[in-house]
């Protein structure tokens, strides 16, 4: 295996399969037309290309460019790496040809750079394999992450009927203007999504506020004070964190039913913080432990009481952590589904997630369901992208919570 003339073709062949599959899927999803990677031909073409790329190093570019171009053009014949369906538009065919050629050249050149034709050292061989895996990894992960979200958004913009006809065709007709967002207007008009959005927002914000009010003092005490039971306490935080929600939901359901708190926003607002307080406590105490004690001790020496130290020194210093925790808690509350599902019956009180469940349960067209999913996702995504730094920190600090 450690020979350039073997490594090159093998990697080339596999790589072409990857590219061809990616291209076929991408084009299928964007045009709805039929594209199909031809694995066997891919292997052959790729092997040839790989051989050319190791045989003719950097300085002999024409041979490399030639094979890549040929490879692209072969798409027109039916013997190319991607088989293009008969009724595909000319543009799509051209795009395929160009993309195959243009993507193939630099990527294969990158993978097989510094890979000599003859014997390879262990390093050269492994480097080539790693570059191949890296390329594959990026494509793979991006695909699995992007495709569902792409499908979600595009489905919400199409009509049920169009999708049933060709589930692959996600192209949308931009000329229809506002009609494109028909599902969304219907959700807001007929399905009360405006209210749900507001309820979710309200519930999440209140949850964040209550959570912080409880967990900041608690976390500080656990992190800073030496007192009996402190260790047991830190542990039980983690332990509580591990109790499955469904187990708690059952007695809570009963208790709320009996006390009449079920089916009320008040009940939700009471119960959400309790699920988030352990998380927040855990995150914050980690952060507080990390804060230098000296600064607080300086405060003590400067004449402050402990509480004043917390208020005037620790809290201002913890703003970034508080932001992270708040965002994380907000996310948990916003995404919460189980309790909302079990406790809320009345559509006028639904949170967004509960509202989306409702869309699933009847003969409501699928684009509505997907539009609901988009409405639930977009705010949290926007928040996430805008405050990525805090959010990522929140995630890493907090939690392994599922």
């Amino acid at each position, binding site marked *: 295996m450690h020979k350039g003339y073997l490594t090159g073709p093998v990697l080339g062949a596999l790589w072409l399969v990857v590219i061809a599959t990616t291209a076929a899927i991408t084009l299928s999803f964007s045009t709805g037309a039929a594209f199909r990677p031809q694995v066997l031909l891919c292997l052959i073409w790729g092997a040839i290309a790989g051989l050319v790329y190791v045989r003719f190093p950097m300085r002999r570019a024409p041979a490399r460019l030639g094979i890549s171009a040929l490879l692209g053009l072969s798409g027109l014949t039916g013997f190319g790496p991607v088989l293009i369906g008969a009724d595909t538009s000319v543009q799509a065919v051209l795009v395929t040809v160009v993309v195959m050629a243009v993507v193939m050249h630099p990527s294969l050149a990158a993978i097989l750079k510094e890979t000599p034709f003859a014997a390879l050292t262990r390093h050269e061989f492994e480097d080539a394999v790693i570059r191949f895996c890296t390329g594959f990894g990026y494509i793979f992960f991006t695909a699995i992450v992007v495709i569902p979200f792409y499908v979600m958004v595009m489905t919400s913009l199409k*009509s*049920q*009927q169009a999708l*049933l*006809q060709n589930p692959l065709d996600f192209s949308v007709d931009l000329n229809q203007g506002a009609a494109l967002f028909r599902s969304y207007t*219907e959700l807001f008009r*007929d*399905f009360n999504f405006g209210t749900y959005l507001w309820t979710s927002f309200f519930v999440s914000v209140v949850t964040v506020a209550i959570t912080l009010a409880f967990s900041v003092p608690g976390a500080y005490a656990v992190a800073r004070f030496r007192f009996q039971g402190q260790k047991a306490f830190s542990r039980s935080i983690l332990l509580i964190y591990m109790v499955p929600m469904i187990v708690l939901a059952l007695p809570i*359901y009963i208790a709320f*039913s*009996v006390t*009449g708190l*079920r*089916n009320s926003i008040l009940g939700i607002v009471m119960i959400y913080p309790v699920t988030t307080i352990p998380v927040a406590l855990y995150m914050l105490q980690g952060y507080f432990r990390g804060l230098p004690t000296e600064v607080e001790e300086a405060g003590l020496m400067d004449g402050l009481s402990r509480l004043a130290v917390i208020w005037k020194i620790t809290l201002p210093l913890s703003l970034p952590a508080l932001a992270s925790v708040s965002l994380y808690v907000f996310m948990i509350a916003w995404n919460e589904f189980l309790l909302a599902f079990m406790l809320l*019956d*009345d*559509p006028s009180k639904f949170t967004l997630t509960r509202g989306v469940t*409702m869309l699933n*349960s*009847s*003969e*409501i*067209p699928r684009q*509505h369901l997907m539009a609901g999913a988009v409405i639930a996702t977009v705010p949290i995504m926007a928040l996430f992208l805008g405050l990525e730094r805090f959010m990522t920190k929140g995630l890493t600090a907090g939690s392994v919570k599922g």
Partner: protein
Amino acid sequence: DTIRFWTTEEQPERLAKQQEMADQFKADTGTTVEVIPVTETDLGTRATAAFAAGDLPDVVYHPLQYALPWAEAGILDTEAATEVIEELGAGTFAPGALAMAAFNDETASVPVDGWTQMVVYRKDLFDAAGLDAPSSFANVVTALDALHNPPEMYGFVAATKVDENFMSQVLEHVFLANGVSPVGTDGFQALDEAKTTEVLHFYKAISKASPPGELYWKQSRELYFDGKAAMIIWSPFILDELAGLRDSAPPTITNDPTSRDLASKTGIVTNFSGPSNPDGAAWGDVRYFGITNDADTDAAMEFVKYAMDQGYTQTLAIAPEGKFPVRRGTADNPAAFSEAWAQLPVGVDRKAPLGELYDQAMIDEIVNGLDVAQRWGVAEGQLALASKMINSQAINRVVRQYIDDEIDAAAAVAAMNEELAKVQ
């Protein structure tokens, strides 16, 4: 005053119509009606939970299967319902519908509307292949052999999703067609092994001619609309979308979602027979207004009376294709509502009267189904027990095991008998 009204008709268009009626009711009486949609699959749980919390609505629009169990559980105020019926005139109601909800000399809930399940099939293909209409097990099996050609065309789309009511309905339909019932006059009655085996064979045959996986009404309709199924079992609610009148469930067999093409190629069968029951049977469902025990009884009764009288046409207009009147008229005009109903346009995004879409013969077939409609336990006076048996989904599970080839027919019958015997 405000009363709360739970309805399983939760599609926005239908909700709107109910709200409209509620608004008129308010205009007439000053009582506000809050119309609350409840998903049908959740209805049982939600009602029990609400009962436990003392939080029941005033009126519930519910299917037959809940009438007697709820009356027994103390959820329904049967007296109030009976009183409403008496005030409206028991004679104006279809007697069958009242009988189905009879509970200790009273009626558990007020019957509203009904429909019968039917076999929907591709008449064009049947004609082309020279097949008889699928009105019996034998005809269906013959047609399967001729038409089953996956993946272009599936012979049938049988219900296989165990936890869907739809499967219970279809199964009961098939059992009834062969004259098999798990209840007798004295309660549980073991399923007849020979007849049940015929049913099981048949059901396995149609499920083998179905696509794999967990199927229920949704897949049946999608496949049929896509021209990929020769036969399905469905309720009459399909009739409007079949004619391209509803955009959220369009026929996709052609590129035109408004086409009535498929409607014209479709035939239906309501009375379905098995080898041991040549007379056949139709599976019917009736929906009721239940007045609950936590209700503001007077207002609730008032509302039900209104919806069954002045508002009755509107109630039916929610989806006329699946809501045949069980109250045929008033004391003065015994056919008032049947006649009004016949004029109601069906459809959502486009509207047309049924008569415009299908030939009269077919419409007659549909409507007359209600006369032969049956349910387990109705004749025997054991509807409550039968409902519980159905709600336990034991039959669904065992049948599924059988069609998945996990057990043989004899074992399946034994297993069903064992499970059903446990239901009290």
